[in-house]
């Protein structure tokens, strides 16, 4: 279809379309997404992970914080603890199931914060331009040149290392990219004629920003949001690994961080949470890729 869609395809896709149903672009994207096997695989995998971390402990008896057995029991030796125990003798399966929730929550919260800050500032900068743009972009650049991990470490050390602080710290260091992306989309879309058309029928700026431009700028932002969730999870793990996680709440990062000193004696207490993080981030990335393809109208014609 490559050539047809360029020179002649205009008219081919263009015609008396009585056979067309009223279908929103979102629905069309969903149909595209449904046909993407890796993305579907990622969706299923993430659903399983989320279900396990939220509902797993209802079905699994045991407590992640209790010392239940000898430390460093290898996996597959004791039937009661199939994945073995950690350096204190805590059950690893219970740890994984309990620690997933906070990990995912921190990731999601951080991504949401990133989106809110990034989209707001990017939208204002891109829409108004001029000194507003200059000011906001200088601020963005300031945050962009800060070494993210160091800055997050400072924030967590200054305030108490709670999950909220960690989520905020991650959000504060990772919004600049989203702001830039939003600004670029706004700059592109604001010069399209339907924006002028909205102005010509008397729409106010507020409406033009949020109701006209933003919905059209969303596809790349949604993709970027999914990827941010993955990055935030890794970030949380990194902080915990460095010993800056919330010591009172079980998370995958904390499990790795606490067990890392014994890695030469016992590989399993760090490997299983590591794998859990890997599969989560991997599935989120697959979903992000799938969304990217689904929102790309060029690929839709195939």
């Amino acid at each position, binding site marked *: 279809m*490559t*050539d*047809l869609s360029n020179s*002649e395809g*205009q*008219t*081919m896709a*263009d015609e008396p379309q009585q056979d067309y149903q009223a279908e929103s672009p979102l629905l069309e994207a969903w149909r595209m997404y449904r046909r993407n096997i890796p993305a579907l695989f990622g969706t299923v995998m993430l659903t399983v992970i989320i279900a396990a971390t939220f509902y797993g402990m209802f079905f699994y008896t045991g407590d992640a914080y209790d010392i239940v057995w000898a430390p460093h029991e290898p996996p597959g030796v004791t039937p009661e603890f199939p994945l073995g125990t950690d350096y204190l003798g805590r059950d690893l399966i219970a740890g994984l199931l309990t620690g997933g929730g906070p990990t995912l929550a921190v990731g999601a919260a951080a991504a949401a914060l990133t989106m809110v800050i990034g989209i707001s500032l990017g939208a204002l900068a891109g829409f108004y331009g001029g000194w507003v743009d200059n000011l906001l972009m200088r601020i963005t650049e300031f945050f962009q040149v800060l070494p993210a991990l160091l800055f997050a470490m400072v924030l967590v050390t200054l305030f108490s290392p709670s999950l909220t602080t960690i989520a905020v710290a991650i959000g504060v260091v990772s919004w600049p990219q989203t702001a830039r992306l939003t600004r670029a989309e706004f700059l592109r879309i604001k010069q399209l004629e339907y924006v002028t058309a909205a102005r010509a029928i008397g729409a106010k700026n507020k409406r033009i920003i949020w109701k006209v431009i933003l919905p059209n700028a969303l596809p790349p932002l949604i993709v970027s949001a999914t990827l941010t969730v993955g990055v935030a999870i890794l970030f949380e793990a990194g902080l915990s690994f460095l010993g800056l996680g919330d010591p009172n709440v079980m998370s995958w990062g904390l499990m790795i961080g606490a067990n890392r000193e014994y890695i030469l004696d016992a590989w399993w207490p760090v490997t299983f949470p590591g794998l859990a993080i890997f599969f989560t981030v991997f599935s989120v990335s697959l979903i992000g890729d799938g969304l990217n393809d689904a929102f790309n109208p060029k690929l839709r014609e*195939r």
Partner: protein
Amino acid sequence: MTALLEIEDLRVTFNTRYGEVTALDSVSMHVNEGETLGVVGESGCGKSITALSTMGLIPMPPGRIAGGAIRLNGEDLTKVSDSRMRSLRGGDIAMIFQEPMTSLNPVFTVGDQIAEAIMLHQKVSRDQALKDAIALLDRVGIPSPDKRALDYPHQLSGGMRQRVMIAMAVSCRPKVLIADEPTTALDVTVQAQIFDLLNEIQRDYGSAIILITHDMGAISEMADRVAVMYAGRVIEDATADQVLDSPQHPYARGLISCIPALGKGAQQDRLAEIPGVVPPLHMLGAGCSFKERCSLTNARCGSEKPQLINHGAHPVACHAAEEGRA
């Protein structure tokens, strides 16, 4: 006399999500030395596909030449090897595209790009090629060509860029020059300049020109003969005068009468219009593909595909014309 370029019963298909779609259906046309053939029709009629097939530039897959022949001096271009096609392309047969900005590489100077085109086909030194490039820029009417040769495409106006494209296309004195809507993106005064330039080049080099356009006015000024295309078929084939003065096919008649006239004293209250739009190629049914938009249809038009036959005046693919109802 055999024609310089002859397209015979060409059939091109594309694999799309609707299955195999016939983009060109037994298309035949020819052009002689020193002659301008106008190919006219709305977008989606197969004009550009015809041009790209002739240049061997149809992407395969999804495209496929399913039948017919394209003969340049008797050599069938659908059968030659890729390397032979490459040497013909830009050599004996060249093409000018619609959008001169995207057809030029933005990171090289125009002089370099023309020189590159020359060196692809002629064994000359780089210095000589650059000299030739400057001479060509001069030939296509670019002022101070030695300076302009050092410019990048974005530094030139749209008209200048199209002149550069023409310089590149004629660098090897092609026997056939295909111009695919060469002035659509340009202003009328610049369009007039480009048309005049193409005519000059034809006079000097004796090239045959295939001018693809949707504008009957351009056909009137430029073409000796005309092939009118609709939905992947040639539906009328005659001299420009015949088509413009006594069009036989209702579509050709519509294309001519829907243009707002400019002549002195001319003023219509209402333009003739062709209702509807070109049907998508994957939805063509049996019979004539123009039947939905035509006012002269009968039962035969719905069932039997009209062939391009001379019913008296000149070849036309229309039952109404054949039965004298037109």
